[in-house]
């Protein structure tokens, strides 16, 4: 087996102590919650921290609090399986519960956290390999190398945002709370991400994402659909998050956000705008789905080729909207959650 390299483990009990530990160890330190992404990456030497600040003992970062009327605060340390079956989340934010329930496998959802999935590392066929393999091909710019092996002329890294919950959080208009040495700040979920495979988070390294803040449910309907080769385990190679608020039969507000098509989630703003003020008819849905495929510009650095993933963007957006509209849908997602 591949073994973990040696490291020091720090186990703070409070956010304040965790921030202090991060400050003390600086660039040598990384945060760990469930460890389902971090530990395998450490084994492959994609991450090489000397100190891990474990958030598992920080009680204030766990649990779901709030109400549908006022919105919910989800502690970043809440496990994905707890979130996926939380009755209020399932009822009022079904897209989020679905996304949390589709991350990896049951075992990993029991360990993995919502904060971890929001911050999960970007992925690429040339990066998610053992050290010896990466060394053999001369490394890539994301770790230890100079160039991008997907687009050799590119000045930037094209690793793919592979979070299931990030596009949903974005589509819901959720916010995240970041706590650092200078205190805490709350930013919109979309402001957490940057379109760069390496610096994919706008969070400072010494900041801790402590909570996901959901807005009031307020008649919101949401859905998430995921493309991958198998019915379990796999990271998304396309995620479609849709959130809609209705005025009677008319769409008052709509957000369609695509996952796994770029280094950050991508909002399909034209598609969203096309829905506002209209009813969720099959014709309106098809028009929105057509427009949504526009911002989907995947590269060939995950499973399946980019033309297929782009084509599926349209199908998945249409299906997600049909689900929200209460029209007949079929796809693997429903069956898995049934």
């Amino acid at each position, binding site marked *: *087996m*591949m*073994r973990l*390299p040696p490291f020091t483990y720090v186990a703070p009990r409070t956010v304040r102590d965790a921030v202090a530990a991060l400050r003390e160890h600086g660039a040598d330190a990384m945060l760990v919650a469930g460890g389902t992404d971090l530990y395998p990456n450490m084994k492959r030497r994609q991450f090489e921290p000397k100190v891990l600040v474990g958030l598992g003992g920080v009680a204030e970062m766990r649990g779901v609090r709030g109400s549908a009327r006022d919105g919910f605060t989800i502690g970043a340390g809440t496990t994905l399986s707890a979130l996926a079956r939380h009755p209020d989340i399932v009822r009022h934010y079904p897209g989020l519960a679905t996304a949390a329930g589709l991350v990896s*496998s049951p075992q990993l959802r029991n360990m993995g956290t919502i904060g971890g999935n929001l911050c999960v590392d970007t992925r690429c*066929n040339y990066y*998610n*390999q*053992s050290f*010896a*393999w990466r*060394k*053999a*091909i001369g490394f890539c710019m994301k770790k230890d190398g100079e160039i991008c092996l997907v687009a050799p002329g590119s000045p930037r890294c094209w690793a793919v945002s592979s979070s299931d919950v990030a596009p949903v959080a974005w589509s819901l208009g959720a916010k995240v709370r970041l706590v650092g040495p200078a205190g805490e700040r709350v930013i919109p979920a979309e402001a957490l991400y940057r379109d760069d495979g390496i610096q994919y988070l706008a969070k400072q390294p010494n900041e801790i994402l402590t909570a996901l803040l959901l807005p009031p449910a307020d008649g919101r309907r949401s859905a998430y659909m995921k*493309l991958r*080769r*198998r*019915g*379990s*385990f*796999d*990271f998304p190679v396309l995620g479609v998050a849709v959130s809609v608020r209705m005025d009677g039969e008319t769409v008052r507000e709509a957000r369609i956000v695509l996952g796994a098509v770029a280094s950050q989630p991508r909002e399909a703003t034209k598609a969203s705008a096309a829905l506002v003020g209209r009813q969720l008819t099959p014709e309106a849905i098809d028009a929105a789905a057509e427009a949504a495929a526009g911002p989907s510009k995947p590269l060939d650095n995950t*499973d*399946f*080729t980019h*033309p*297929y993933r782009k*084509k*599926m963007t349209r*199908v998945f957006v249409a299906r997600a909207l049909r689900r929200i509209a209460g029209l*007949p*849908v*079929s*796809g*693997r997602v429903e069956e*898995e959650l049934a």
Partner: protein
Amino acid sequence: MADAVATTQELRIVGQPIQRHDARDKVAAAMAYAGDFALPGMLHAFVLRSPYPSARIVKLDTQRAAAMPGVAVVLTARDVPKNTLSTDVPGQTTTVGPLRATLHVLAEDRVRHQGEPVALIAAETLEQARAATEAVDVEYAPLPSVFTTADALAPGAPAVHESGNLLAQWRIARGDVAAGFARAAVVVEGEYVTQFVDAAYLEPESGVAWIDSDGVITIRLSTQVIEHFRDVAEVLNVPQNRVRVIGTYLGGGFGGKEDVTVEVYLGLLALKTGRPVKMVWTRQESLLARAKRHPYRLKYRTGALATGEIVAQEIDLLADSGAYAYLSALVLLYSTVTAAGPYRAPNVSVVARVAYTNNPPTSAMRGFGAMQTVFGYESQMDRVARALGIDPVRVRAVNTLRRGDSLPVGQVMETHVAIPELARRAWAALGTPAAPRAPHVKVGRGLACNLQPYGRIVWLHDWSSAWIGFEMDGSLVVRCGAPDVGGGQASSLCQIASEVLGVPLDRIVVHVSDSALTPLSGTTTASRQLYMSGNAVLKAARELRAQLLTVAARLLDTDAEKLEMIDGAVHAPDARTLSLRSLLVECARASVPRSHLGVYHAPAGEPVDLNAGAGKVFPDYTFGAHAAEVEVDTETGEVRVLKYAAAHDVGRAINPQSVEGQIQGGAVQGLGYGLMEDVVVEDGINLTTSFATYLIPTAADVPDVEAIVVESGEGLGPFNARGIGEPPIGPPAAAVANAIEDATGARMTRLPITAERVARALGLVTE
């Protein structure tokens, strides 16, 4: 039939679905696998592998690595007593024939594939061994390379080996193919492409070696072939009786542990350091370095009469051997023999070739060349049926070989070919068709049949041996060299001994897989172990029984033939009984041994000249028919297998539980092959070196497999059993492809059949 004696008597233990002695241990994680063993003072070993698919080694300096903390030794090619390893035919056979497949234990001046071993390191800890591996100073100069079989066989292609890139070819020609096509009412042409596939067993390659008393180099490892002790001895340049291999119960083999894995490295390091040493490959290493299943390009041209009767087959096969020969020539022979399937082929030509490339090497994997061809001949069969409007079950029945017919290679079928019955039963098991869930979801059904040899090629003169002996208390010991790869090999031997000697299973202990202490019985490969070692145990048990009953007959004053051995006692017809314990005491007094060594020799034959076109290649075959019902999402191309039934004629099921397990496991592995598994190799670089990218089916991806066990009583194994290890992996890919065409009209010709490929076949994606 040789020693495989049929029995008409009522069976008590054979045929019972008995819980195997290893089952609970495995489920409860109590089984000690090869990687679980450790010894005091043990070193840890690691292999330095080539990062490049084709390069000259310009510099190889181990000085700095050898001086690293904890490093015991760093070995390169010049440290290996005999650096050339023969990889032709492992196991308990002596005649190899014309093949001379070799490779270097450690690379000399050149590497031919990514992952080729270059140096070997042992250190006090695994971390130190790894660190030292990275400190070995190797300089490579890239060499010209070739990555497709078509390129490899083109004039002027860079030669992977001096002998040229065409490693082997076989040809069969029979009847008049042109005349056959002239008579045909329909001619179907197809080209099919299959992929590199990994064994992907749960347990990676692993073992521990030490020098035992008397200087015997002892290697305990996960292997399908304990007879590799001879190869280790050859490489180490020591007598063969100085190397002992102990095989553990395997966490999966599938052919991946048929060639040598860690044993030669461990033997070398134990010899060089005098210390115990352990090697466990990481998953990444296993996926990178282990030989794969051969990718094939299969071209078929099939002509049939309006009745569905096939009158002409023109078949061209081309396989990728990767950088070394391993067992490729034999894999290709299996393809050649099975290319036309279990069907009559009066006019047929088969041209089969296998070429070297700088891709990962390929060798044995479940199905061994007889499974890639199923995708070819069963896709063709379905297209013929479709073109003629004939029912899929009927078209197969029309063409099935009858007893006395012969395969294209000229081998006469001396057995009942149950294909029509198997096909009918598998097809019927699908029941009422599912209604599509939505307008864009189409449902379809497909059938695929196959034949798979069991037992080794007849000119390899295969044999197996087993020892059976009673302890004084009447408990029984079985010793047999057969490795148990998880198919219940050891447990089935107990059932056979129990049946013949009337000893309850809980009074039997079986020792397997030790080249020093168990009689050699050959490889657990080629679906041969039940057939061969089952017969050896049967023979040993029957002969021991006869030995003991001679004494019992005297004591009971009756004829030995009238006695029965049941539940640890000898029973006379008049209800008198004699306890085993008393009988054994009497045997000792009468100088009659209470143990016996049974040796079973398979029916042998002379090598077949394929060009001359006549002869027996395999002892016998196992036949199967699988039926699948699938739904296809015509907006995404996603395929979901809704129902699956797999029928095989196993001759007789020794343990129906194990038989069903083999059928279900084989079908699921075959569905993985058909739908998702793919070792992606880009210019010789393996991109799928973890289970995040090398995708095998999960519980969410496969339906329940209904195993239909048919017992014709026609096999050559004990109690007329047939081999069932490999056969169930053959049909699934073709069954699914046929079902997809039934559902959508799209014919899938390339494996794996991913959602994207289906979407493209449906015209959803054109870019």
